[in-house]
């Protein structure tokens, strides 16, 4: 049943289309995707697809590995060689994929819980090894898929289903964590900063070595709702009003507090031999 269209403005127009220019890099037969209205993950994928498009390599040269969680579903929507692995294990899987297939650009696209909680050990080791993979960590401060539980990235005092009286813990400072382990490219953007996010993704993917791009993204149904922050659109507005770009900031200073200023930008961009550079060269 369709409502009879009512136009509030006689000039209002809807040009309807059935396909999108980005569809050639998406598994169209699976759209619309499962993410909630005003979820930021779709926007991250949008920037990612633009990044892939802009890089002068054929799509076969890319592989996406994701874990479990809302962001983990990304692998199922991109039309590339994509791998939806177990919780927390996207990075070691990507490590194996990369080491046996070094020509492909391997991108890990997963969420904060998957990468930093259960996957934390793998994250720090991949950074330490300077494994030539790119990690896109979509940080929505919560475990979305399972209904809104505490994550190691949940800001102090925030409410979640497993911290109903407010989070008593302090979150990881993800850029600081991976930078201190030896990552050669570390950046943080938000789902709002689509253009700069795309550029960061391109830089991260093309840069040899371990790159991490943390993307602060709105979780409307859970994080926003449980903390009475409105919807994802309100969170996007919050990013608009409270993010401050500080390239080359000291990563030790980019902690995120609850509804506080978020420092974004490109924090680390250094040169170092990768794992395979060193392995293939040997010692002496």
């Amino acid at each position, binding site marked *: 049943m369709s409502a009879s269209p009512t136009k509030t403005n006689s000039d209002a127009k809807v040009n309807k289309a059935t396909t999108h220019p980005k569809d050639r890099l998406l598994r169209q*037969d699976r759209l619309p995707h499962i993410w909630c209205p005003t979820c930021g993950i779709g926007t991250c994928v949008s920037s990612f697809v633009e990044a892939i498009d802009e890089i002068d390599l054929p799509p076969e040269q890319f592989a996406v590995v994701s874990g479990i969680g809302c962001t983990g579903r990304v692998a199922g929507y991109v039309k590339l060689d*994509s791998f939806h692995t177990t919780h927390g294990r996207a990075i*070691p899987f990507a490590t194996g994929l990369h080491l046996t297939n070094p*020509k492909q650009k391997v991108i890990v696209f997963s969420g904060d819980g998957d990468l930093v909680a259960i996957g934390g050990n793998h994250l720090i080791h991949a950074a330490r090894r300077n494994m030539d993979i790119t990690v896109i960590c979509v940080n929505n401060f919560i475990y979305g898929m399972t209904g809104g539980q505490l994550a190691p990235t949940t800001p102090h005092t925030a409410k979640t289903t497993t911290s109903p009286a407010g989070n008593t813990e302090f979150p990881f400072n993800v850029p600081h964590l991976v930078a201190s382990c030896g990552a050669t490219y570390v950046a943080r953007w938000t789902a709002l900063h689509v253009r700069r996010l795309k550029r960061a993704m391109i830089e991260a993917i093309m840069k040899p070595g371990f790159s991490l791009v943390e993307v602060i993204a709105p979780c409307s149904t859970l994080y926003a709702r449980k903390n009475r922050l409105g919807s994802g659109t309100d969170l996007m507005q919050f990013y608009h009003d409270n993010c401050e770009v500080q390239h080359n900031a000291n990563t030790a200073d980019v902690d995120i507090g609850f509804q506080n200023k978020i420092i974004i930008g490109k924090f680390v961009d250094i040169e170092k031999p990768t794992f395979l550079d060193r392995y293939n060269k040997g010692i002496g």
Partner: protein
Amino acid sequence: MSKAPGAVLTGEHFMNGDVAAAEGALAAGCTFFAGYPITPATEVAERMSKRLPDVGGVYIQMEDEIASMCAILGGSWGGRKSMTSTSGPGFSLMQENIGLGIMTETPCVVVNVQRGGPSTGLPTLVAQQDMMQARWGSHGDYEIIALSPNSPQECFNLTIEAFKLSETYRLPVLLMTDEVVGHMTEKVVIPATSKIKQAKRRLTKKKPDKYLAYEHDKDLVPPMAEIGKGYNVHITGLTHDERGYPAVVAPVQKRMVPRLLDKITQNAKAISKFEEINTDDAEVIVLCYGITSRVALKATEMARDKGIKVGFLRLQVVWPFPEWRIRELAAQVKGFVVPEINMGQVVLEVERIVAGQTKTVLVPHPGGEVHDPETIIAGIEEVIK
């Protein structure tokens, strides 16, 4: 400058089971190993770390066994034959991702050099306590292939067989050795390269627009696609349909998951491998595997000298279990004797299959030592009394 040795060290060697398993992997064409040190499997990793650069392969020591298992799944999808090795505690950690390998139908080999358990147990001493874990260790319904060598020579041979089975049936294959076989040093003959048949990966002949990731052949195994060739492979641990896309509904579960079991059970006779000695006229069969089989063979010889008609059946492939053969023998014999270095694991399978038709006598050992022949003979005598 001397040439680096190749993958196949043709000739006679004096090496231990762990090293032989590593050499078997290289001979089978393995060029990726991701592992973590654990007694008594460490020598497999050490040997691979030394030899893989010789064959243009990559060795990586991962941060734990969970990462090792995931890395070899990734390595397999990257296009290389991949292996890891571990023992009991690491094997427990690997279970979730063995399940991922089964669900995504990823060929790879996992070596478990069994030691005394449970928990940290006896790190340096023998046991066969993971045999049921090999079959049921991961969650969910599935079938597995597990081999059991009883000598360093068999470690070499059965590792090659493991790679062949993993590529043929598209799943992780387990090589269940034990601390004695792994650490004993014996003569290992490595044949000429031409005599070793390296398993080829079953790749699809279809073009990307016609290819369906889990559309299977007659033997219920779907051909794989190579990544980086435009197939846009998608694999997931979620229940998935023929395209490989998540489809978390009961009808798809019904269609797709029993096939993971059927592809093993329906091909069990082709996969299975066991050795029989003097079973034709046997009244008692000693059913054994791994290091225990060497003592058991001695025990059967001693029993024969006493006039007991004992037959010897040694499993080289423990899972899938050769049910059909046990049923045939059950109709003929007074009983089975199952010596194993555990408190009763494979014996449960024998009991289940014979279903009371004949006696089943377990000769257990809690671990740390190999049986004495006398205890096995006592078990044999228990059957015929």
